[in-house]
């Protein structure tokens, strides 16, 4: 027999008692835990993914940060011309341009977050196939990266308020909550669609349609006060109604405090987010094989 000395040395390495946390890798069945603690462990990765998205976006585009303003601003001009001027759509006694822009800023954040999140898994296939980390980090990072665009567009909104002589009230303090509501809605929907997108690539074509449909189903070009009462509150089942109404109320002081609408929207949004997260986790095991 061969005499290579390496053969028979058993080499028992001394045990390090601290490192005995055993991880079991086994097939999972059905609905699985969200493992949010693990996601928290990976918060630095989440931070770097957000940071990469922002950095790359502004490096690759010629106009960079200007896009964050151009999109909602020009939409606002078009809306003001056609809905405000020509169709004479009412705007709760607020100048139509700022009435629509105050809604377009959170809307664009939502719409871009939703579309990019839906595509996020497919466009990160190189990562998914080569390394493990909680996959939830991908759509979350994508949606979070949109906050920078939101902030830029929001600054323009403040300038417009100055121009129209609208003084912010103490209600403005509620704004972060409405932003959070837009974020959870975008993320929740994004989780559903991104996971489906891995399985059915048709989703890519469906998303623009969903966004367009949702735009008109949300009181952006028109006020929700057009609807008679029981319906107006039920309208809050569309979470973006709560967001838009909340923004207008907090910033422009539209008369009614939309408490019930927002409560409905928030509940709906949480339902979408939680169900989306569970659906996403359930589909996760096939991402690496299918994406």
């Amino acid at each position: 027999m061969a005499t290579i000395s390496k053969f028979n040395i058993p080499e028992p390495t001394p045990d390090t008692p601290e490192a005995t946390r055993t991880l079991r890798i086994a097939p999972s069945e059905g609905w699985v835990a969200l493992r949010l603690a693990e996601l928290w462990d990976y918060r630095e990765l989440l931070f770097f993914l957000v940071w990469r998205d922002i950095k790359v976006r502004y490096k690759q585009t010629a106009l960079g940060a200007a896009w964050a303003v151009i999109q909602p601003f020009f939409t606002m001009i078009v809306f003001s011309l056609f809905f405000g001027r020509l169709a004479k759509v009412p705007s709760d006694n607020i100048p139509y341009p700022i009435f629509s822009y105050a809604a377009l800023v959170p809307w664009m954040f939502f719409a871009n977050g939703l579309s990019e999140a839906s595509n996020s898994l497919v466009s990160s296939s190189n990562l998914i196939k080569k390394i493990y980390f909680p996959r939830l980090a991908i759509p979350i990072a994508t949606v979070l990266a949109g906050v920078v665009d939101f902030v830029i567009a929001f600054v323009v909104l403040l300038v417009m308020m100055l121009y129209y002589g609208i003084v912010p009230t103490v209600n403005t303090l509620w704004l972060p909550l409405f932003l959070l509501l837009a974020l959870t809605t975008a993320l929740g929907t994004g989780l559903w669609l991104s996971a489906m997108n891995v399985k059915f690539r048709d989703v890519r074509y469906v998303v623009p349609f969903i966004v367009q449909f949702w735009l008109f189903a949300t009181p952006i070009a028109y006020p929700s006060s057009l609807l008679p009462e029981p319906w107006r509150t039920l309208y809050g089942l569309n979470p973006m109604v709560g967001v838009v109404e909340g923004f207008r109320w907090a910033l422009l002081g539209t008369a009614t405090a939309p408490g019930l609408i927002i409560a409905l929207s928030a509940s709906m949004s949480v339902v979408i987010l939680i169900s989306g997260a569970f659906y996403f986790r359930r589909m996760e095991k096939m991402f690496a094989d299918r994406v």
Partner: protein
Amino acid sequence: MRRQTFAREPEETALRNDLAIQVEGLGKSYRIGAKQEAYGTLRDSLAEMAAAPWRALRSTLRGGNRRGGAASRTNDIWALKDVTFEVKRGEAVGIIGRNGAGKSTLLKILSRITEPTTGYADINGRVGSLLEVGTGFHPELTGRENIFLNGAILGMKRGEIIKKFDEMVAFAEVEKFIDTPVKHYSSGMYLRLAFSVAAHLEPEILLVDEVLAVGDMAFQKKCLGKMEDVATEGRTVLFVSHNLGAIKELCRTSVLLRDGLVSFQGPVVEGIVLYSRETMQAEADDAHARRGTRWTDLKVNNAGAAFAPALNGVEPFTIGARLEVHEPLLDARFKCRMDDASGHTLIYHVTNQKELDAPEITPGVYRVGVGFPPLWLVPGVYTLYFQLTARTSDGEEKRYMSERVMLNVTGKLDGQGRAVLSPPLDWSLVREKAASA
């Protein structure tokens, strides 16, 4: 199937604490055609939904893994089936096997990229996996930015990256370009940077897939050196490579996979021998598809080659083989070729029948022998085979290859990890002239 599991003999429960990885009955199936139909279309799903609403809805909500009722689909292919082995803490294990044997699937499961279909694996310790270098590198970002991004993706903490940053940059030799977007890097610089980040990962268990197969020779050497450091630092390493030389350098034991099964687990040299034989057998099967002339019965120093006795690099040796000739052959040329474990050819010697004093080669059984002088080979695994090229009477040129015999060279020669030969050299140092003060 052979299974030599050294770790399994004593009571299992007592051993558990010194195990880093325990794999039990691990299997992974893919649906055939998954490549072409990587994703279903909504139309199919809708059509199915119309036919059987509840079933379709459930299958849409369910993940890709169809166990239970539908598990026994006949069009599943099993990339891995019933893989069982154990890895001790601090052990460096080479995973070897031919393409499609399931090596990469195994690593993907152990690094949690994809789920197994059956069985389980228990992992004790923090896992770092390198299935590719430069995962997540973005061309628009600078070297510095990519180090942080890639480090985070590999699972390093920010503090850890900051601490090792200078070391990484120095290892990659890109100091001057660290703030340049990597899209302007040469491919060599890019790879060096990517590997450098990966090489500074310090998990308790490292899973590596073929990442050394990149870059030029000098860089590969450097990577290999770094990997050796990792292996000797007492960390557990699972290493997949086609570079048998690298496997032998880095690993003490090996797991040989064949068709999704463990066909051998044990010392790395034996694993390599079995793997090489398997590969050569497959090649030889192709070559010997036609009946007739063939090589058999290879011997090293007149001993059967099944497990070649260790040779000492400083001694002469002989290789012999039987040659069965089934038809008259003309213009016969005999070749003897020897490669080292990384596949570099060391000897390629050709002789012809004239030189062998054989005016004609007629059907019959021949004994071929080659005597080698001391080759001064440094310890390692080398392979050797014979080839016969000749014309048959109808003018057709034919080649007959022997199986490959493994030479297990031991001894004290030292190539410093760089050289293959270490002949005794006669150094001298003579002072020719005294320094004039």
